[in-house]
């Protein structure tokens, strides 16, 4: 037997909590209705009617006004709760009789039945003059199927109260977090990693048991000086390999070790559905996402977090303006610039004419201070660290300025010069500082 609790004005969580107080098998049917399996509850709560009365009483104590339907299958119970109101207990075998007077719109109210064609079918039934479940149940099944497809017989079965689907049990996602109080403070990283590995392993076992992955790990270290050190590891993809997670934490802690000895650890993971991705034969080579994250962490450990990533062009005319963003790999198809399989299979040779090859530029960061001998404002000889020569040819000057309303505005004259040392440089004179710099060289 199944019961359905229907509440027009209650919260979904309150309904679920109410249902879980009576049965461990609860279905989150719709925002306003939950169904529960009441088989075997007779010994505790008595007859189905007594159980329904008890549900209504408990809901009333909690400030909820609910209707309860009890039937031999979940769909009939839902229809009874929604359509009959109050407490409705339908004995087995009498579903069709008791549900016959209910409006046919009840079948389309539940989210489980809100399919794309539901509105069209409802409109079709209305045009046919079918108003009640009894009228729908009386239609010839073959003719109904011929006119509105497979959905017709299914709805007709529901109208007769003869649904036979199983209850889709709702299982609340547990909080994936573990903590550990250490017997004595740990000051060294190596023993800390040992403890962390154990915690992470337990956490991952819980995730794996529910076929889940994580896209965020949170680590909180309680330190000996009574402060807390919290680190967040946001991942651009759901991680399933606990070794990659441990490595990321190790690299982060090696880069920024805690300021004092650790007395307790708390580790939490945000559970998400694992990524399902079908690799193709013709998809270009790309690093595996978990390996890439570890690689990026290693590189950040080596050269600094701010020096690893993808370059970003900023929307400004400021010379040398540069942005760095986190490097991520988009799955094939999500990036319009990545060719599709058909293009990869028949690759077009990236042949452009020689005239379209662009002269590249190499930037000196920071710009190289230079001594420039000028005649009538035109550079004639340049001396800087590693650069020395007479100007052979030049082009300029181009004056650029911007952000003059800010403290870091720029105002300069730029020159392209060919020096006697054989290189082509871009130099500029900072008009505010009255100083010359070499910005870089064309290569």
């Amino acid at each position, binding site marked *: 037997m199944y019961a359905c609790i229907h509440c027009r004005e209650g919260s979904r969580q309150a309904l679920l909590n109410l249902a879980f107080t009576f049965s461990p098998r609860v279905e989150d049917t719709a925002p306003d209705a939950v169904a529960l399996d009441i088989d075997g509850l007779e010994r505790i709560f008595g007859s189905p009617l007594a159980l329904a009365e008890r549900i209504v009483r408990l809901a009333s104590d909690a400030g909820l006004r609910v209707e309860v339907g009890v039937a031999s299958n979940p769909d009939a119970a839902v229809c009874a709760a929604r359509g009959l109101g109050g407490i409705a207990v339908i004995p087995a075998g009498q579903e069709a009789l008791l549900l016959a007077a209910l409006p046919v719109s009840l079948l389309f109210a539940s989210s489980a039945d809100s399919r794309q064609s539901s509105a069209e079918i409802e409109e079709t039934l209305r045009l046919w003059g079918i108003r009640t479940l009894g009228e729908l149940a009386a239609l010839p099944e073959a003719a109904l199927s011929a006119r509105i497809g497979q959905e017709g017989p299914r709805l007709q079965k529901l109208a007769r109260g003869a649904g036979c689907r199983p209850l889709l049990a709702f299982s609340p996602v547990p909080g994936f977090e573990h903590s550990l109080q250490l017997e004595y403070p740990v000051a060294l990283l190596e023993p800390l990693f040992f403890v962390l590995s154990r915690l992470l392993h337990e956490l991952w076992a819980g995730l794996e048991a529910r076929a889940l992955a994580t896209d965020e790990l949170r680590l909180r270290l309680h330190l000996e000086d009574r402060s807390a050190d919290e680190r967040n590891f946001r991942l651009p993809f759901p991680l399933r390999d606990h070794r990659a997670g441990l490595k990321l934490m190790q690299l982060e802690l090696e880069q920024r070790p805690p300021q004092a000895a650790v007395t307790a650890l708390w580790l939490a993971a945000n559970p998400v559905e694992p990524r399902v991705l079908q690799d193709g034969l013709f998809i270009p080579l790309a690093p595996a996402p978990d*390996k890439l994250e570890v690689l990026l962490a290693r*590189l950040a450990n*080596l050269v600094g977090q701010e*020096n690893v990533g993808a370059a970003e062009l900023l929307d400004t005319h400021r010379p040398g303006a540069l942005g760095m963003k986190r490097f991520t790999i988009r799955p094939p198809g999500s990036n319009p610039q990545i060719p599709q399989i058909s293009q990869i299979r028949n690759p077009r040779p990236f042949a452009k004419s020689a005239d379209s090859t*662009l*002269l590249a530029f*190499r930037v000196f960061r920071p710009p190289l201070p230079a001594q420039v001998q000028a005649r009538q404002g035109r550079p004639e000889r340049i001396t800087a660290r590693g650069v020395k020569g007479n100007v052979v040819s030049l*082009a300029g000057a181009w004056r650029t300025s911007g952000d003059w309303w800010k403290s870091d505005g720029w105002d300069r004259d730029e020159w*392209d010069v060919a020096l006697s040392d054989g290189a*082509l440089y871009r130099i500029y004179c900072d008009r505010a500082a009255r100083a010359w710099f070499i910005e870089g060289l064309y290569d």
Partner: protein
Amino acid sequence: MGPASLKTELQSALSARFGSYLNFQEKPAPELLFTGIPEVDAIAGGLPRGCLTEIVGPPSSGRTSLLDSILAAATSAGEICALVDAGDSFDPETAAAAGVNLDQLLWVRCGARPADALKATDLLLQGGGFGMVVLDLGDIPPRQVRRIPLTSWFRFRRGVEHKPTCLVAIEQEPCAKSCASLVLEMRRQRECWSGAAGCSCLLDGAVVQAARRKPAGRDLTTKAQRHQESFLVSSCLGGSTRTA
């Protein structure tokens, strides 16, 4: 008698005695990655995958223009590339103008620390999955690059071997010795200016010459003609967008 014909004659003479033991397994030709410049592809055929390629030349010889073109070709084919910038001199603006998809290029800035650049390159090769890894030592003085032990280059060669990754090193002089499978030498022939001399003019670009230094051609007499090509690199941000 050339070495090839001598080898064939020896094989035919000894095949009756030793049979199939003389049929050496030839190393399969590596897959090639096109550079995007037909003239360079004509002399080199493309950059071999699973091998180390050196692009050498003095400053302003067109090395970076060639590199940008290669990166543009690779990223437009959907490959993920990595650039280890030892001198922190990569200019994203001109690279993007050349067609490089910056979202698919991992940029590692090493701040003029060649030792870090070598470690980063090693990590990238060990990590795997990149279509191309570039080690840019173009701004590092040659005497400093020469100090890189040959074992590092051997390690790189072993790291990239049997992988579909193309390892490219940009230098002023070739340093990898026998570890490099292809050496392209760049040289600027002349720069192109527009406008009358003495008054405002524009840097239009440069004519650069690419020459294949390794592997050398068999016909030594015509090597100079057959294995070098000139092409024009035009200025995008240097001159053509400016008005005189």
